C-alpha cells in the first residue's frame, strides 16, 4: 500500500540475486531521482520476490492497493519509469511482468500458481525494519503464545498442523519438539540450521534475506515450547547479506523487548546468537554441526544419543531448519487446521522449491504439497528455456536423484518423491534439458560428495572415491563393460555401511540415473557416444552449414585455430585440431555449432 501520504510506494527487490543482477545501480538511480521531491512516491526495498529470472525487480503499489511488477530493471530505465508510471500514472506495458489488475499479463502466473506461506512476506516488507513486520501482524503469534498458551499447547498446535521438518528429512516437527520438551534438564538449546549446503538450494538464504523476523519469531515460539532459553542460528559464511540482516533483526528484537529477559512482559527469557559456518557440507548434518559449534572439526557421530537427549555441550537440543521456523508463526496465527488443510494426506502445508537449471523461470516457487512436478516445472516454472526438451529434474541435491519425464505426474509429497527415487530434500530443483549428460551429472555429484566427505568412515571416504573414478573413466570414454555392475555394488555397500546421511545417500544420484537413464551409461561405454553432446572426450563439434552466417565470431575465440572459412560463408571445424573446449559454442550467435 502506498503510505507516508504518497500516491505510490515503490519497492525494489534487494536480495543477493537482485544485487548480482545490478540492483545496486538501480537503487542509486532511484534515490538520486527522487531526492529533489519531484515525484509523489515513497521508496523502500525488500528481499527477493522470487522472480530471480527477471531481476532486478521493482513493484509499484498504488493507493488503492493494486500493484504492478516490473522486471529486468536498469538504472537507465529509472527516469522513464518515474516519469511515466509515477508522474503520469501510465503503466509501461513492455516492462511489466505482473499486474494485479490483469492476471493474464506476462509472467503473472508465476506467482498466481504459487501458494505462499513461508514466503508470505518475502519481497513485500523491508527486512531491515522490525516495524514493517509488526505492522503486518508480526510477533503477534509469539506474544499470544507466551502470554496465553502453555508450552504444551504450542507443541500440540504444531503437531496438529502436520508440518514436517523442511531441512530434508521430513521428521514431524511437533513430535521433535515434544521429545526436547520432555527431555530432562534445566539448560536446553535451540538451533536453527541455516547451513544451506545443498548446491542448487537457496530458499533459506532468500527467507533470511527477505523475512528474518519470521524465522526469529518461529524460534521464540520453539524456544518457549521446548524450554530453551538460548538459541543459535548456524548460517553459512557464504551468505553475507543474510548474516547482516539477521544481525539487524536480532538487535531490533532486543530493542523491542522480544529477545532478552522478560520478553513480551513475561518472566521468560530467550536469546538468539548467530554462528557463522566455515564451509563444510557435512555440517548440515546435525551432530557434525554441533561439533563445529563446540569448536571441533565438523564430524558426525553415531546416533543415539539423539540431540533431544544429548546435543550441544551434552544438553538437550532441538534443531530445525529456516523454512520450518518461518512457517511456525503462520501456523499459530492461522491455526493448525488451516495449515493441515493444505497438502496431501501425509505431507501437509507448502514447500518452497528453488527452480534453477534449464527451466525458463528460475526462482522461488512455493507450492502446496500435492502439486505434481509437471505443475511446478511447467505451470510455475514456465517450461524449458530456449524451447528445448525436458530431460530430467534433479531434486534433493547430492543426496537426491534425477527423475525423468515419465515421473512428471508424481506429486510433491515426501513419500511419493522418495518412492520415485529422489527426495524432496531441502527443495532444490535443477531442471536438465536434452543437452545435459546424466552420466556427467552423476559424476558431478560424486565429485561433490567425495570432496565433502569428512573422512571419518571408510565407505564414504574411499567408496565414493572409487565410484568417482569409475564415473570419470566413463565420461572420458574409457568405461569398461563391468563398470555399471561395479557402480551398483559399491553404491549398495556405501549406503549400508556409512555412518551418517552424507555417505548413506551419496550414491543416490548414480542409482537414479542408472535407473532411468541407463542407456546413456551404455552409450558412453559401448558406443563411445555422449548423446547430450556434453562430455568432451566423446563428442565432435561441427558447424551447420545451413545456418552458419559466416560472421567469424567462432574463429576469434578458438584457441587452436581449428575453425576456418571465408567471410559470410559457412565455416568448418577441423576435428583433428579441435580440443572441444566449446568456446565457439558459447559464442555463436546463430547457434550453428553442433556437438554430438
Amino acid at each position, binding site marked *: 500500500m502506498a503510505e507516508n501520504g504518497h500516491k505510490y510506494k515503490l519497492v525494489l527487490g534487494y536480495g543477493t540475486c537482485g544485487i548480482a*543482477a545490478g540492483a545496486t545501480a538501480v537503487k542509486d538511480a532511484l534515490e538520486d531521482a527522487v531526492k529533489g521531491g519531484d515525484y509523489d512516491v515513497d521508496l523502500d526495498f525488500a528481499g527477493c520476490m522470487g522472480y530471480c529470472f527477471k531481476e532486478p525487480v521493482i513493484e509499484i503499489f498504488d493507493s488503492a492497493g493494486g500493484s504492478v511488477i516490473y522486471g529486468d530493471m536498469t538504472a537507465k530505465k529509472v527516469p522513464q519509469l518515474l516519469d511515466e508510471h509515477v508522474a503520469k500514472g501510465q503503466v509501461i506495458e513492455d516492462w511489466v511482468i505482473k499486474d494485479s489488475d490483469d492476471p493474464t499479463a506476462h509472467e503473472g502466473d508465476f506467482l498466481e500458481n504459487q501458494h505462499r506461506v513461508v514466503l508470505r512476506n518475502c519481497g513485500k516488507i523491508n527486512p531491515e525494519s522490525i516495524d514493517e513486520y509488526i505492522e503486518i501482524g508480526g510477533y503477534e503469534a509469539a506474544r499470544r503464545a507466551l502470554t496465553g498458551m502453555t508450552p504444551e499447547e504450542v507443541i500440540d498446535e504444531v503437531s496438529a498442523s502436520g508440518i514436517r521438518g523442511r531441512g530434508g528429512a521430513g521428521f514431524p516437527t511437533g513430535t521433535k519438539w515434544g521429545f526436547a520438551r520432555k527431555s530432562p534438564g534445566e539448560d536446553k538449546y535451540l538451533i536453527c540450521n541455516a547451513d544451506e549446503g545443498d548446491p542448487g538450494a537457496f530458499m533459506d538464504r532468500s527467507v533470511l534475506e527477505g523475512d528474518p523476523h519470521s524465522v526469529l519469531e518461529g524460534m521464540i515460539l520453539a524456544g518457549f515450547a521446548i524450554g530453551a532459553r538460548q538459541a543459535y542460528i548456524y548460517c553459512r559464511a557464504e551468505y553475507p547479506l543474510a548474516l547482516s540482516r539477521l544481525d539487524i533483526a536480532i538487535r531490533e528484537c532486543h530493542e523491542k523487548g522480544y529477545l532478552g529477559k522478560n520478553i513480551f512482559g513475561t518472566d521468560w527469557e530467550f536469546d538468539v546468537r548467530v554462528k557463522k559456518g566455515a564451509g563444510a557440507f557435512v555440517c548440515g548434518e546435525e551432530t557434525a554441526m554441533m561439533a563445529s559449534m563446540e569448536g571441533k572439526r565438523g564430524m558426525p557421530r553415531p546416533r543415539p544419543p539423539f540431540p533431544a537427549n544429548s546435543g550441544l*555441550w551434552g544438553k538437550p537440543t532441538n534443531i530445525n531448519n529456516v523454512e520450518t521456523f518461518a512457517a511456525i508463526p503462520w501456523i499459530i496465527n492461522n491455526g493448525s487446521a488451516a495449515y493441515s488443510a493444505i497438502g496431501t494426506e501425509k505431507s501437509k502445508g507448502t514447500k518452497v522449491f528453488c527452480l534453477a*537449471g534449464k527451466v525458463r523461470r528460475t526462482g522461488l516457487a512455493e507450492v502446496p504439497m500435492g502439486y505434481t512436478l509437471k505443475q511446478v516445472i511447467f505451470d510455475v516454472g514456465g517450461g524449458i528455456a530456449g524451447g528445448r526438451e525436458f530431460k530430467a529434474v534433479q531434486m534433493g541435491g547430492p543426496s537426491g536423484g534425477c527423475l525423468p519425464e515419465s515421473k512428471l505426474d508424481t506429486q510433491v509429497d515426501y513419500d511419493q518423491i522418495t518412492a520415485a527415487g529422489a527426495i524432496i530434500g531441502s527443495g532444490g530443483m535443477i531442471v536438465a534439458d536434452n543437452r545435459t549428460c546424466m552420466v556427467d551429472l552423476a559424476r558431478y555429484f560424486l565429485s561433490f560428495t567425495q570432496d565433502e566427505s569428512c573422512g571419518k568412515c571408510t565407505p564414504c571416504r574411499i567408496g565414493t572415491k572409487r565410484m568417482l573414478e569409475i564415473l570419470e573413466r566413463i565420461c572420458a570414454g574409457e568405461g569398461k563393460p563391468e563398470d555399471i555392475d561395479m557402480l551398483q555394488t559399491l553404491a549398495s555397500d556405501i549406503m549400508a555401511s556409512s555412518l551418517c546421511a552424507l555417505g548413506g545417500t551419496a550414491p543416490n544420484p548414480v542409482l537414479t540415473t542408472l535407473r532411468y537413464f541407463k542407456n546413456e551409461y551404455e552409450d558412453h561405454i559401448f558406443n563411445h557416444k555422449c548423446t547430450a553432446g556434453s562430455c568432451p572426450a566423446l563428442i565432435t563439434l561441427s558447424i551447420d552449414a545451413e545456418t552458419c552466417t559466416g560472421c567469424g565470431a567462432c574463429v576469434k575465440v578458438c584457441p587452436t585455430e581449428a575453425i576456418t572459412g571465408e567471410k559470410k560463408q559457412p565455416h568448418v571445424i577441423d576435428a583433428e585440431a579441435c580440443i572441444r*573446449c566449446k568456446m565457439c559454442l558459447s559464442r555463436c550467435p546463430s547457434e550453428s555449432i553442433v556437438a554430438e
Partner: protein
Amino acid sequence: MAKECTCNNRFADVSDLGPVDEIVEKYGQEKGALIPLLQETQDAYGYLDEDVMRELAKRAGYQLSQLYGVATFFSQFRLKPIGEYLIRVCHGTACHVAGATQISDEVINQLGIKEGETTPDNRFTLESVMCLGACALAPIMVVGDDTHGKLKPTGIKKILKKYAGDSGSQEEEE
C-alpha cells in the same frame, strides 16, 4: 620466507599482533569459539599465517594442533596469502549444468594459474566454490565483492580486464 605485505594494506601485516590481541580479548572466554577466532584472524590478515596461529593458540589457550585441525577441515580457511581480488567460480549444480567447468577453464586460461593459486603480480587468486546460492543467475563467479552472473566463457576476458588495473597482466597481452 619473506613476509611482506602484498595486498595494498587491505590486511594487517603478520608481524603486527594487535589484531590477535583484540580477537582473543573478544572471544577468549567463550566456550568453543574456535571457529570465530580463526574467522576473525583470517579477516584481519587475509589468511592464517603459521606464526600468527602459534600466537593465537598461545594467547587463547588452545593447542596449535586444535587450531590447525579446524583450519584444515573447513574450506573457508586459507593457509596461504591471497591476491588483491579473490575470484570464486561457483560450481553448484545449477552452475555446473550451465557450464561452470568452461568458465573455470577460461579463467585458468586467461590468468595462467590453477585453482588455489595466485597470479605472480598478486592481483588475482582463483578458487572454486560449491554453490553461492544465486543459482537463478548461473553460471556465476564472484570477483572481490562483485557477483557476475549469466556468464559466458567468451565474456570472462572482459570482466577480468576491469580488475586488472594499471599494472597490466597476462590478459592484456593479445
